[in-house]
């Protein structure tokens, strides 16, 4: 385990939902060496990993339905531990939306590899989601401002530039953003004209 990876792990809260046994104990011991906070819970129960950064979970049929979040809306990195020599359903595994998998029996190196990939993948997805959310917010703001301008132009018989100036001046007076003021205006008109 490299120094920087160990440092990164040391800040994490990890929950392990794996059947007790020597293999699971080895995984937990290895993670504890990094000074990460590791909790072992078995069996998996709903809502138990809400505050974790990394969830390590034994593969089982129907696992997707027992995870603490709907598939695709993970709040933590998810590492699924696959059983040694046993069959598992690829479609089921795909439905779990894991960030990485770990095959039993696990060694220190395979644990580190799987944990690193799970954390990196989950973190990347989180950043992409943040980026998309920001873009959507921008689009909504532009649309609200355009709608608010149209309302003001129609109400006061003024042009586009004057309508924008009104919005901006009022936003400055109220110390809010033009977009939030426009949101409020559009919502108010929608409410007042609701039939």
């Amino acid at each position: 385990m490299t120094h920087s990876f160990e440092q990164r792990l040391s800040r994490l809260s990890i929950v392990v939902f794996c059947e007790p046994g020597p293999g699971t104990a080895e995984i937990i011991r290895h993670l504890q060496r990094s000074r990460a906070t590791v909790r072992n819970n078995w069996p998996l129960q709903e809502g138990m990993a809400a505050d974790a950064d990394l969830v390590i979970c034994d593969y089982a049929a129907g696992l997707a339905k027992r995870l603490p979040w709907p598939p695709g809306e993970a709040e933590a990195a998810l590492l699924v531990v696959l059983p040694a020599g046993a069959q598992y359903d690829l479609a089921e595994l795909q439905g779990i939306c894991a960030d990485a998998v770990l095959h039993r029996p696990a060694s220190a190196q395979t644990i580190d590899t799987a944990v690193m990939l799970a954390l990196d993948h989950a973190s990347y997805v989180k950043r992409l989601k943040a980026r998309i959310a920001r873009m959507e917010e921008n689009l909504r703001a532009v649309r609200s401002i355009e709608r608010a301008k149209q309302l003001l132009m129609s109400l006061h018989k003024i042009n586009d530039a004057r309508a924008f100036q009104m919005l901006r001046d009022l936003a400055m007076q109220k110390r809010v953003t033009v977009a939030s003021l426009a949101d409020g205006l559009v919502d108010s008109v929608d409410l007042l004209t609701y039939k």
Partner: protein
Amino acid sequence: MAMDQRTLTPDAWRVGVLFSRTGCLSAIEETQFRGTMTAIDQINRAGGVNGRELLPVIHDPASDVGLFRAYAYSLMVEEGVQTIFGCYSSSSRKAILPLIERLNGLLWYPTLYEGFEYSPNVIYTGSSPNQNSVALFNYLTRRFGKRIYFIGSDYIYPHETNRIMRMLLTRHGGEVAGEAYVSLNCRRQDILPIMRHIRDTSPSFIFSTVVGEATTFLYQAFSDAGLDARTMPIASLTTTEAEIQAMGLDVAEGHFTAGPYFKGMGGTCEETFVEEYVRCFGEEDSINMCAEAAYFQVHLLAKALAVTNSLDTDLLRPVVLGSSMEAPQGRISVNPTSNHANLWSRVGRANQAGGFDIVHQSHSEVDADPFLICPFSRETDEEAA
């Protein structure tokens, strides 16, 4: 420079420095390199950050987008560097962005650019269009008229910036007199037919987004054609003190540039910046807005690093966003909603001494609005009226 001789501790903070020191964009990227190194040297001489020096890991991408990508990979994967100061052209930034995002690095980008971008893995410290294009447009159209000739280098930034300027022009009832693009490696003779067309179409002013060596060719061709900056100036967002030194002071005189910083603005912080720069590089002629942004962004990192004591991007990001500092241009801050710096808006006219006389400036730093959601500030609208 002094820092090269210093003995750095094994525990130094390793940061990437990725500016071209060779190739067609080397003149301007060298100023960013120097701004970065000036700040690093200044911080290290003051004891580093939490007792550890900043160690620049330097590569020269030679103005080649492919090399930018290769060196960014090398820095992050092979050399273990997460924080990178670098890139001038939008092409180079776009080239390394997927890698920076996937590997969760932090790119500090000290260049004015065309906006319409947000990445959680970039801190943008150059001007966005609402901080420079709008001010320049309003100042020039009010004084010279609304027929604009667009000339730019043929890559992302000029095309996107001209699209924004055309939007402003349409909004204010203006007219495009002409539009032309030249290669990044253009030759002197490539400019001549464009200059003849400019003379024939007689625009109110020329809006240039030409970068690199071609900037010298453009301004010299303008002068050689007998055109007069007093009646039909060139307005630019990219022609700085460094380009003026290259083209000749008499050639540049009377033309306009918009930016957050011009050398010689005064103030304690600006004087310190110039002194430190001269101490490191023995000259001050190349100091410009790009060098200034490259300089203050290193200080922004150092300030955040002192808090986090770690270069981990996930720890640094929340501390950097919303932070502020006294920069050579004045007080600046990093807008937490866009990752862009809130900067000053200024218009300068090139003078005989190779510097700029400031003819317009904002009352305070202007909030970055890279997506031009609310691009028209009160004061710039008033000026355009």
